[in-house]
């Protein structure tokens, strides 16, 4: 890794992150200033504490899990623009696969940055276009006919992406799949309600199995 380039990206990334946090707070602060109505502090603190019980450890796990896959600049970009698991991470996985780059290499840093940058631009442009064209679009997108398509967009995404990763790694996949299937049968609402924990469990199992296979020179 070129340390100078990476250090620069950390510097720019941190500046972008601070600016991003300020931009995120623009809306609530301006609503407060312009209307002259302050938030109900007690309700706000209670809401933030309740949400943080999930999202504080969740934020840490997300940073630790996704940043190795994303690389330097893309991590900063993705943690401002959001939609990590349903968009940015699979987008990078796809680009990495197509460009045949290896994680944590200078080449992959380039590919993942470009991938997250253009994915973010696409999302905000589609959202803006949607807002502009809201009146004609609303009945189409809210139609009962199309509802199932968008309800299960994540399953479509990971099904499609799954093939690419399952193709060359079938020996590593059997164990996590068996565990996930068993968990799904016995605690289904936990599996689909706490996906981040299931990701961690499945990743740790894959890691253990991979290490055994690696030591036996089977992979």
């Amino acid at each position: 890794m070129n340390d100078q380039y990476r250090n620069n990206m950390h510097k720019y990334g941190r500046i972008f992150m601070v600016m991003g946090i300020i931009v995120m707070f623009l809306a609530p602060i301006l609503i407060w200033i312009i209307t002259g109505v302050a938030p109900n502090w007690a309700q706000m603190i209670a809401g933030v504490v309740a949400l943080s019980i999930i999202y504080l450890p969740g934020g840490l796990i997300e940073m630790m899990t996704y940043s190795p896959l994303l690389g330097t600049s893309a991590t900063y970009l993705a943690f401002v623009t959001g939609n990590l698991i349903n968009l940015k991470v699979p987008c990078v996985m796809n680009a990495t696969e197509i460009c045949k780059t290896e994680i944590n290499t200078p080449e992959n840093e380039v590919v993942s940055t470009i991938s997250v940058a253009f994915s973010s631009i696409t999302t905000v442009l589609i959202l803006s276009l949607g807002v502009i064209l809201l009146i004609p679009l609303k009945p189409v997108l809210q139609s009962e006919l199309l509802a199932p398509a968008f309800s299960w967009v994540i399953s479509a995404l990971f099904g499609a992406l799954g093939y690419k990763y399952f193709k060359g790694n079938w020996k590593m996949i059997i164990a996590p799949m068996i565990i996930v299937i068993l968990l799904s049968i016995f605690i289904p609402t936990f599996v689909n309600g706490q996906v981040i924990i299931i990701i961690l469990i499945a990743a740790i199992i894959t890691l253990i199995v991979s290490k055994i296979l690696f030591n036996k020179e089977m992979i």
Partner: protein
Amino acid sequence: MILYTLAISDVKEAWWLYAIGAFVTLFIISGSLFFAYHANKRSKELNMSRENIKKAVISSVSFSVLPSIGIFIGVITMSGFLGIALPWIRLSVLGALHYELMAADLAVEGVSAANLTVENFVTIAFTMTIAIVWGSLFTLFFFKKYQSKVIDKAATKKETRSFGPFLFQAVFIGLISAYFGDAFSRMFGYKVKEIIDGSYTGNESIETTMVPLIVFVISFLSMMLFDYLVEKKNIKWLENFQLSFAMLIGMTSAVLLGMGGIF
């Protein structure tokens, strides 16, 4: 104090709230272009092929369209309760539909579109923004250290056979297995929270469905077919679009099942 009497409907659809939305959009586009510019410059120093950079751009844009439409449907879902502008802003930055709905519900429990006040609105906006910021703060303060102390060490072993790449592969496989579980487990049960006018009503039920598993499998098989066409039949242009097409086929199957009464 005159402003205090503003009606909630005026605040939800105020022009300045839309102006903030436009500003957030411009900020994200500028930031993305800034990093893309540096990455592109770096690619030239590394002598990477232009073809690869083009592939990264085209595949990422084409892949992002469908999930982004899904995110926009989230804006429409929330609009009944909070108007268009605030959900537009919230879903343009770190956040997600289920998170925003949960935040609104926890911040002002029992409030619906009919009795929402300006105070509720500003309380919701603050709560949504504060509670999601943890991931960004961890990235801001700890990512650099985590990268040098953990990620680099895992990736840069010098032996000829290195376990490093398998470490990342394990996370990918964990991710995909978990989302297979997400689809599979719904055959046995998943919680549905009732949403009316863009907010939770508090009513919950346990439902079952086979549709996500079918969608998962059809997308998987479609990808297998496209991969065959790209690798064996040499239809190279398909490479950048295969993921989007496979997703589209999977999503279409959900629509067809719905037409047949299977949800």
